[in-house]
């Protein structure tokens, strides 16, 4: 490829600017979090005496340990179940070619672009009538349902590309559909399943609307939902709010940095398919 040096240089400068623009809010949060609690520091200004204790104060004030525990429980409730249901359904629609698969797929695709706000009102009354309101189930069960369109669509896209000979060979060996699924197709689908797991983890962890509507006790919400409450409570104490936000960011950031390649790949793939 013909690349002039000037092009490469403008490219580099632009990249650095783009990164600076992306990182700027995080830097600002961090510097502000080190100022004495209750002050109104100027934008970016390194404090004379960094108050590292703000992180501890925020951790306690926001009941951070409870929040993290609650979010983990919700993720554990949502992600494995969604993966299982979506893989089963995707396998049936994409590979077994069930009767009426077009209609089934269309039904699921119908929900792909659905904004959660669209059904949040009836969802509130429904969870109330089921007696689930204010429990973690009120977030877990609806989220599984809401994730089905994308997850089934995603898994179907994987299974529809699996060669049919694979199953026919196994069938001649006398394997039933159930064994065929568990022994051959699930192991082969692992890359698709793990990418989906990453996406579902993120979407659950970051879920705000369901958390604030369906659960009134912040310590039973997702971290994102609790941060909303934390802002209401500590909105005037800027350094503490910044410290709290950073603490809440930390787990996703850590997971992201560990699995960054997979994350970026899944997110790109995810938006292409969605």
């Amino acid at each position, binding site marked *: 490829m013909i690349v002039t040096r000037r092009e490469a240089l403008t490219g580099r400068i632009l990249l650095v600017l783009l990164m600076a623009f992306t990182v700027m809010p995080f830097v600002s949060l961090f510097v502000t979090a080190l100022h004495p609690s209750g002050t109104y520091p100027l934008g*970016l200004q390194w404090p004379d005496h960094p108050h590292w204790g703000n992180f501890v104060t925020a951790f306690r004030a926001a009941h951070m340990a409870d929040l993290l525990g609650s979010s983990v429980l919700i993720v554990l409730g949502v992600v494995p179940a969604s993966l299982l249901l979506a893989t089963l359904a995707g396998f049936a629609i994409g590979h077994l070619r069930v009767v009426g698969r077009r209609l089934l797929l269309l039904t699921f695709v119908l929900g792909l672009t659905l904004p959660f706000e669209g059904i949040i009102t009836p969802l509130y009354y429904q969870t109330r009538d089921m007696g689930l309101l204010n429990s973690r189930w009120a977030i877990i069960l609806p989220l599984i349902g809401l994730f089905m369109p994308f997850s089934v669509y995603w898994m179907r896209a994987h299974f529809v590309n699996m060669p049919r000979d694979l199953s026919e060979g196994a069938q001649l060996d006398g394997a039933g559909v159930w064994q065929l699924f568990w022994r051959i197709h699930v192991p082969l689908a692992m890359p698709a399943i793990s990418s989906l797991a990453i996406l579902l983890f993120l979407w659950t962890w970051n879920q705000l609307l369901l958390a604030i509507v369906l659960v009134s006790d912040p310590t039973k919400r997702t971290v994102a939902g609790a*941060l909303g409450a934390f802002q209401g409570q500590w909105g005037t104490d800027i350094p503490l709010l910044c410290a709290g936000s950073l603490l809440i960011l930390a787990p996703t950031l850590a997971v992201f940095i560990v699995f960054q390649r997979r994350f970026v790949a899944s997110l790109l793939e995810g938006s292409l398919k969605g």
Partner: protein
Amino acid sequence: MPRATLDRSADRKEAQLSPPRRSTRRADFRARTWVGWGFVAPALLMYAVFVLRPLFLTFEYSLYRWDGIGPSTWVGLGNYGRVFADRDLYGAILNAFELILFFSVIPVGLGLAIAATIRSIAASRLALIARTVVFLPQVIPLVAAGIAWSWLLSSTGLVNQILSAVGLGGVTRAWLGDFSTALPAVGVIGAWVLLGLCTLLLLAGMTKIDPALYEAARIDGASAWREFRSVTVPSLRQEIGVCVTVTVIAALASFDIVYIATQGGPGNTTMVPGLEIYYLAFSQREVGLASALAVVLMVLVLGCVLPIQWLTREES
């Protein structure tokens, strides 16, 4: 249906060769197609109970006036009439469309420009680091983005500090609290969240373009702009379609950022349909009206997304 006929004729051919196997294969085929329903059932059940049923109920609620507690009164399409007659309600919809400019047009346009500029160094180490860094906004909760930016855009925030430093002290203000700048300020937050995603999606698409096309353009003496217009953009049809779809949905259905950064204020200048539904249903106890607005929002999203999909997928 041609597929079924094909299968059948294949079966028939096979039957002529080995008659006994035919019936078992047939039976097996039929068993598998129905066994499949057992596999789909759990997913379908969760989807039906927690999405389809509420979806149906939203339509039903939208035809009644109901405070969520007492008896409800049938009002037909009255609630829809109110959505389009009340300045506050249709104003929220107009705001959502204005947000498309920031959530969609800017990230996609700027993303195209950036991706085209860094295309030649897409494999360098700097670009690999950038790939991770510009993804951060996609990973963190939007709530955190909202808090970070509320602080940046506040009267003592970094944005004003920079403006003063370059001699623009006169325009500094509390960007999210000012009637004329609050909505664009919210838009900037959305642009920040979506710019990285769009850039990377478009860049990934560009690396798939045949380099020979660029070589040919350069040999013909095409300018960078001409090259961008005649080679890059047409080849990225699908990626651009994806970016526009994702960002338009993000704009129309925005909730998290506005909830945290402005709560719809000052006045109603940053009110969006998602937040209005939340207030109507859970603070003002106007369940019917909230549901009518929800239906309008869902129809709007579909009305915007379907044409985009149709336009960008036409060829394949």
